[in-house]
């Protein structure tokens, strides 16, 4: 299985080298894998590269952290109380339908071109998947469990901490995984569209300077960050759910 997966990867890189080498497209539009690897190698030793990665991660992580801090509690509470869920449903549906990047000019106007603005846009993009998945997770607590908790007069706070939250974990983790990938994507998007420093900005800059191998090296970096986040999220999910019945863990995976 693993061999096949690696094989597919190698095949794509080979195809890339073939297309670039055949001269079908100009080398400025698509440099070969070797040129990109060389550019990446050069960048890894430079301070500006790591500065750019740091700037992007800073914006993504700040926005994501606030989205987690807001999305999980609000999602759990609105998920448990049917009235809260119903009254907020329309608002949430409307808010989450706004394409966040389209709202960028508004944020630029209100908050200016600052790292805080980047984090805010990331927050808005990330909060809804987390909130909705938390809501969904809170609702997944079975009537049987609710009845037991009521019969044994478990206080509300304890119920949230030990029943609703753990019950919602598989679903919350799904939201978190989606949001984590989105956070980097949106941070880079904002950097591309504004003058804020970060990977997105470097891609634009390299492209404008005609150094497409460097631009692709940054694009690959963005991909690597996204992939690392997915791996990290999978690991965290596995750790959190390893004590669940096998069927449940399987569902979440």
């Amino acid at each position, binding site marked *: 299985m693993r061999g096949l997966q690696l094989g597919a990867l190698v095949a794509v890189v080979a195809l890339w080298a073939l297309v670039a080498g055949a001269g079908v497209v100009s080398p400025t539009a698509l440099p070969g894998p070797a040129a990109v690897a060389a550019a990446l190698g050069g960048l890894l030793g430079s301070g500006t590269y790591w500065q750019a990665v740091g700037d992007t991660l800073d914006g993504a992580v700040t926005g994501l952290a606030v989205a987690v801090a807001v999305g999980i509690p609000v999602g759990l509470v609105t998920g448990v109380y049917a009235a809260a869920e119903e009254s907020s449903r329309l608002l949430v549906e409307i808010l989450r339908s706004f394409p966040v990047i389209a709202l960028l000019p508004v944020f630029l106007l209100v908050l200016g071109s600052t790292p805080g603005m980047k984090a805010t846009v990331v927050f808005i993009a990330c909060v809804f998947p987390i909130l909705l998945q938390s809501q969904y997770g809170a609702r997944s607590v079975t009537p049987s469990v609710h009845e037991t908790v009521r019969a044994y007069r*478990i206080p509300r706070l304890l119920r949230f901490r030990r*029943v609703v939250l753990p019950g919602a974990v598989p679903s919350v983790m799904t939201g978190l995984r989606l949001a984590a990938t989105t956070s980097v994507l949106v941070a880079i998007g904002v950097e591309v569209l504004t003058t804020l420093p970060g990977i997105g900005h470097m891609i634009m800059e390299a492209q404008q300077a005609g150094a497409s191998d460097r631009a692709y090296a940054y694009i690959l970096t963005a991909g690597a960050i996204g992939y690392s986040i997915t791996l990290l999220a999978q690991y965290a999910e596995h750790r959190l759910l390893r004590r669940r*019945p096998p069927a449940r863990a399987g569902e979440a995976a």
Partner: protein
Amino acid sequence: MTRGSALHVEDLCMTFGRGGPQEHRVLAGLSLRVDPGESVCVVGPSGAGKTTLLRCLAGLAPPTSGTVRYGDQRLTGPHADIAVVSQDYRGSLLPWMRVWDNVAFPLQGRGVKKAARKATALECLDAVGLADVGDKYPWQLSGGMQQRVAIARGLAYDAPVLLMDEPFGSVDAQSRFDLEDLTLQLRRRLGITVVVVTHDIDESVYLGDRVIVLGGRPTAVLDTLTVPFGTDRDQLTTRADPRFAELRTRVLARIRGERLDQDAEPARN
């Protein structure tokens, strides 16, 4: 050695979907009494509203009319003196808590510290014959063992009244006998009041000091039988007693009779 107070049910009515097209009258003026230390079985065909009655006794469902009193208090919600073991043991145990933690959870709700909680939980697990599974997770146990855990949780709650809804309905026959004997033994040792709702006629006669037969549509009390076997019973001799056969025949006749009357009705018209 008995503890707690008596449960009184007076003129209990329950109608679901009142005023709507699906209006369904389940209980029609049920009255019954459960004395402290008594073991009462409520038996009736499925769909007779046995679970509804039990939920009213537990304070989990407010009746449409009529009252449930515990001692001289009118029940308006779950009571600290009343523990419930539900039919759905798989669903009522929390899969992310270890077995001991599940048993101790109601105590955490009362603010008992962890060490004390765990000690009580392990004692209660021991009492139901599960001395060494405290650190496992519920889903690692068999159905019969999970139901024992649910009973241990009821015991840990230290309530004088234990309500059980079809508690042994979904375990294998051998576990069922063991759990019936466990229930009798706990009741004898702890002096608790036990109310068991079941559709199994033999089980109701084996477990109860009194058997309340429900039936009809909407449900009413058809009969109340006193079981003369005392507190020491066992699966072999008690079930072989001629009086056992008499009682189960009477319960069955009561339930059947009601059904036959209803079946005969259209023919008469």
